[in-house]
Every structure is written in C-alpha cells, then in structure tokens.
C-alpha cells in the first residue's frame, strides 16, 4: 500500500511538471518550425535580435502577471510607457543628467501604478475600468506634454539602455532576465509573493487571514507601473526619442503573453516563467513572419492562427493530465 501511494505521487509529480512546462513544449516546437522555415532564424545574431525586441513586451508582461495573479488587470501600461518615456526625454532635453532622468522616469512609473492600485483597492472600482480610465488620462497627458511631437534625445549616453551590450549580450535582455529572476524568486519565496496568489485565489479568505489586501494590491500595481517605465526607457533609448504613440496596444500583447504562459485570468494561478515564454512565442512569430517576408495582409492571419493553435494544443495537453 505504501508502495502504491509512492507510485501515485511520482505520477502526479510528473504530470505537474508537464503541466508547468506545457507552454515550453509549444515554444520549442515553434522554434523548430521557424528554424526549418528560414535559415536566417536560428543564428546567434537573429536570436539576440528577437530577444532584444521581445524584452520590452516581456518586462511589461511580468508586471501584468503580478496584477493578473491578484485577479486584476492593468490596461494603462502602454500609456504609462508613453508618459514616462516622454518625461524621461523631456527632462534630459531640459539638461538633467540621464541617470537622474532614469530615476525620475521610474519614480513616475511607480506613482502612476500606485494610483491605479489605490483606485482599485481603496475605491473598490473594477480594475478593468479603473485602469482603462487611467490609460485614457495618461495618453492625454502624454499628448499635452509632447504636444503630439516626438521628443528627441541628444545625450548619447542614454543609448546604452536600449542599444548597449554587456559581454555581447544586449542590455535590454539582461534587464529582462534580471527582472524575471527577481520576480520569480519574489513570487516563490516571499510573503508578498504568496499573498499575491492568496488574494487572487480567494480575496475574502486572504482578508480573513489578516493580510492587508489593499497594500498588496497597491504594491502590485506600482510594480506594474515600474516595469512599464523600464520598458519605456528601453523603447525610448532604442529610438533615441520619446514617441507620443509609444506603447499603444501593448497591454493586449502583454495580457496575451500572460495567458499563453498559463496564468489564469481570474487570478491565483500561474507565474512569470510562462509569461516570458508566452512573450517569446509572440516575438518569434513576428520575427519569422518578417524573415519570410510574408505579406502584411497575411501576417495577421498567420499570427492569429498560430496563437490559436498554441492555446488549443495547450488546452488539449491540460486535459490529458486528467
């Protein structure tokens, strides 16, 4: 009887493992297909290229993962990106040293995120509508601040964030990995991380357990704002100019990455590993379609179908587990 129980446990563990890495399997399959379709794909230079391109969405998506794990959502990330990027460029243009501009940018990101969090937590407003309103407001603020024109950055030092490399690895990729590793660890091993899951799993129970639900929520949205501002820095640095249109629609990509990565939209289940892979899946898809010079008219269709197949396969694999 002991023996049987052990066997069962091993089985369960294997399935859980499979469950966790389902999306990885799909990703690897995509990589394989892409390599077969274009010689230019599986080269070090192109892979670094893809990773660097993905970093912007991926970093935003990590923040989105936290928010979604609490059963929330943050539609404002794109506008926050635009506004914080514009401010960074604005203060640099005004003569502030760029490292300080970076800090200002991130501080504003945190602040805007915290505002989202306060409205959601204290105001008891559904996250969707609260962050939608903030999204609209922040976009308006960006337009007012930039007057609809890009702000060009002249300080060449700023180029490093988006264009620099360390030991041959582009800096945006390093930033992405750093943020990923830190948040992975935070989610697993800190009370804050576990409270995020608890709140998403059953907010009432979390409250009854004495968790300061509101504080955790504000912190989570603030982090999402912070990560959006970091993405803004990469984006702004890559273009060496702040764009009033920056980040438009990125919230959908980020949410898609989170869900493809297996995090549940209603909260409490998931994590950042899947999200990063989800973002990579979409990045690889864009890249291979461009490499193959698929007509733009057909790119959308191809992209949609691959996403659909990926999630359908995922859902079938999930069923297999049962």
């Amino acid at each position, binding site marked *: 009887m002991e023996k049987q129980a052990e066997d069962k446990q091993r089985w369960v563990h294997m399935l859980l493992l499979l469950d966790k890495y389902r999306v990885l399997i799909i990703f690897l399959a995509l990589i394989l297909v892409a390599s077969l379709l274009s010689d230019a794909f599986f080269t070090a230079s192109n892979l670094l290229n893809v990773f660097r391109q993905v970093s912007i969405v991926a970093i935003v998506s990590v923040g989105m993962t936290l928010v979604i794990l609490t059963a929330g959502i943050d539609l404002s990330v794109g506008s926050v990106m635009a506004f914080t990027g514009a401010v960074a460029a604005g203060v640099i243009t005004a003569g502030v040293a760029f490292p300080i501009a970076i800090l200002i940018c991130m501080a504003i990101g945190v602040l805007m995120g915290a505002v989202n969090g306060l409205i959601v937590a204290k105001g008891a407003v559904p996250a969707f509508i609260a962050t939608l309103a903030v999204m609209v407001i922040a976009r308006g603020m960006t337009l007012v601040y930039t007057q609809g024109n890009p702000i060009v950055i002249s300080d060449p030092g700023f180029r490093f964030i988006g264009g620099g490399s360390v030991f041959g690895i582009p800096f945006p990729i390093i930033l992405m990995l750093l943020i990923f590793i830190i948040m992975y660890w935070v989610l697993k091993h800190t009370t804050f991380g576990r409270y995020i899951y608890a709140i998403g*799993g*059953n907010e009432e*129970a979390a409250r009854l*357990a*004495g968790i300061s639900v509101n504080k955790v929520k504000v912190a989570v949205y603030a982090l999402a704002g912070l990560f959006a501002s970091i993405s803004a820095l990469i984006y702004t640095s890559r273009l060496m100019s702040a764009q009033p249109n920056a980040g438009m629609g990125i919230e959908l990509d980020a949410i898609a990455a989170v869900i493809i990565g297996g995090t549940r939209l209603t909260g409490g289940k998931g994590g950042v590993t899947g999200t990063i892979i989800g973002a990579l899946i979409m990045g690889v898809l864009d890249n291979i379609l461009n490499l193959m010079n698929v007509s733009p008219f057909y790119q959308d269709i191809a992209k949609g179908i691959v996403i659909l197949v990926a999630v359908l396969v995922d859902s079938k694999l999930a069923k297999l587990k049962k």
Partner: protein
Amino acid sequence: MGHLLEMRDIKKSFSSIKVLKGINFSVKAGEIVALLGENGAGKSTLMKILAGVHEPTDGKIFLNDKEVSIDGPKHSQELGISIIHQEFNLIPDLTVAENIFLGREQQGVRGIISWKAMHTETNELLKKVGLKNVSPTQLIADCSVAQRQLIEIAKALSFESDVLIMDEPTATLNNEDTQTLLNLMKALSDEGLGIIFITHRLEEVVKVADRIVVLRDGEYIGSELVANVTKDDMVTMMVGRDITDLFPERTTPQEEVVLEVADLSVRNRLYDVSFKVKKGEILGVAGLLGSGKTDLSKALFGLHKRQSGSISMLGQDVETPKEAIDAGIALVTDDRKSEGVILDLSVYENLLMPFYRRISKTGILNKTKMDQIVDKWINDLKIKVHEPHVEVRTLSGGNQQKVVLGKWLQMNPKLLILNEPTRGIDIGAKTEIYKIMKDLTNEGIAIILISSEMPELLGMANRIAVMHEGRISGELPIEEATQEKIFYYATGGDTHGKTS
C-alpha cells in the same frame, strides 16, 4: 471564576432584517459550550461577530471581564480568538501549509518564507488532527471536502488562542474522524482553552460539551448544563416541540432494477465497481474519508470519464450529466458552495434551475407556475428565507443545503443520488427530509444515500455498500449491518490482501 468571554444582549440586523435579538452568551476557561439551534437561528452570525467579520448592531463583548470592540478578523485573532468558519476559507491553489499559515508565515529574514520550518510545523498539526496521507505541499484543490475540514481545524489550532470557535466542524466528518476531533477538544479544554462548538449532532454534545446554549429564531432561549438535560430536552428547546421518531419506517423495495452498474472503473479513482439498485430502495454507501464515495457519485452522473464498465439506468447507457438527467438521475453533491448552489442567484432561481427545461418547452418562463413550485418547496423543506428573491449567499449554511436538496427533489427523479444530504441540517428539518425520502421510495424512486453519518445510514438504508480505496469492499443487508461490520469493510475487509 470570571468568564473568559462574555457577550451581553447582542443584536444584529442585516438591512432591516433582525437576525439576532439580544443574545447572552459566555465561556469559561476550560469549558466546552455547545451552541445549538435550528438552521438560520443565528449561530454562525453570533460567532462571526466574535471573529470580527460582522459588527454587532448593539450589545457588549467582554474578554477576561474587560470590554472590547472587535475591529476585524486580524484584531479578533490578536485578542486570542480563533474560528473555524462553517464555510471553508481555504485557497484552492495554495498548498496545505500555506493555507494553514496564511498571513503568519514563518520567516527567516522578514518577508522571506522559511519553507522547512513551515512544513515541519504543518506536519505536526496535521498529525494532531489525525490527517494522514496529506502532505504539507499538496494543493487544497486536490483535497477532499473532509480533508479540507480537518485542515481548517489544523489551521485554527495553529493560532494557539484562548477561545476556539468551531462552527459545525463535524458536519463532513465520519465517525472515526469525529471521535478524534472530540478527543482533541477534550484535551484542549483540559489545557484551559474555552471552546465554542456548533453542531447538529446531539450525541456529540453529550460526549464532550459541559454546557449548552440554545438559540431559536435569533432569540436567546436558555443555557443548561449538559449533565442536567437529555437529548430530548435539547430538541425541545431548539425546535419548540418534541420530535419522537427521527427515522420513518423503511419501504420495501420493488423487484424492478433501476440502476445497474457493472465493472465500473475510472482511472486512478474507481476500480471494478458493480452493484444494482431497485425501485423504491435506499442503497447506503459508507466508507472512510477518501474512499471514493464522492467519485462514485460523480461517475454515476457522467462527470468522470470511465475507463471501463457500464452504467445502465433503466436500460439506458449514461455517459454525460445531460444523459444522466434525461434518464432520471439527480445528484445532490457534497460541495454545495462550488457545485451545488449559484451564490449570486436568488433562492427562487436556484430552486428552479434544473426544472427550467421542463416547465417551459418554448423557452419562455411562466411566472405563476414557477411561483407555485418555489412556494411549495420553501414550505416543505422549511427553508428559512424572508423572501425567495434574495441571493442564496445570504442564507444560513443549513438553509443553503436545503435549497440544493429542493432543487432536485422537485424533479421527480427515478434515481436520486444524495451525497451527504443532511450535512449541516438541523434535527427538525432532518426528520422532514427523511419523511420526504420515505415518500419518494413509496412512489418507487430509488435512492443512493452516501453518508458519513452512521446512524443515518443504519436508520434509512435497505442495504449498505462499503467502499475502500475506490472499490466496493463489502455489501450488507440492513439486517446484518452494524457499525463494527461497516468499519471492518471500510478499512479493507477481506479485499485488503488484494489491494496492496
């Protein structure tokens, strides 16, 4: 000696509805007080006030003779009160250990969890409540209802508080686990804890409680030492009248077989299950925690994909819930919160849900007809609700259970599967439900009664099947059934050799 805890003239209203109308209540250190009353009497509400969930509309609370006001769950914990709520407050996708220590995790550096310490302590707590086969790293989602109940108890114990409130902790437990729990309660009270114990099973009260406090309809009825009253006295205090025969006389089953199950297997859950149920028969199903009773009920209703075997309902094969319903099977599940009721819909709608298809061929609803049905079942089951259009969420636990029952009873099924049907239901309503079951069998309806309450099985069933590790390890005609025999089979019986 002073009181550990005292509540004076507590009143509570929701909107304009008076739920508590001036309750006096107290516990001393080392005392076990049983709080008794019918469904909806106000027991849980009174306890939630202590737990900081509700604020009283009026009244005073004293702890160690000092007046306190309780400002929320956390404060209540800090004051030394811990509670096991009637409805579970576990988070399905977190582990057992995390749930037990939620909000109070062991931390090395502040904010960073020490998993090892937490798992060690969890193991000890689980042992204390007699929960085997559950690891601290298991997800709550993978635990059965009974296991969850014991985990809730472990959680409450971990607070090491002065007052322990247990709101129907035994409702989902079988005899053995109940006994373990009652022993534990004794031990804790010997250590000086004050325990408030809510239950609808009076034999448990007699076993452990020192004193009873009775509520009826939000009114304080009285308090007596257990030594001074009989069970019948308690019932009279609760219900306001005598209840003589709990169980009605059995119906003799007819010859015709309604359900025939042959070699049913469900992967990792059920193995080679075979049995028959006849018209008008009540087949009882017994078994220890995790023996597969719930899985069996779900498999019969087409909710589990079967690996092999057949389920034949009056000659029809059953594979999906819809086929099951069409064939005349109704299932009352044991997890009312996640499978039984729709909390945001009204009592009215919940009652009608499975019936919609029948009352309306066109898809358009007929109000008069619906009103009649709802009125009938609210009255027959004595569902305590001031208005059928309020959300089920606001009902007391027992009354929610009645809604689940009512919803299926009115379907006139040919086979009724009842999984822990009287969980949390007061003694008065229980007799009503037993009477209804009797009437149904008289009409030729077959019933599968899954229960962890031994007296209920012995009192109602015509035949008892006992489960062990996903198999039927024995079948007993009621004449031969005794608690001892059932326990023998439940722990493996003569199939023991085969399974390991």
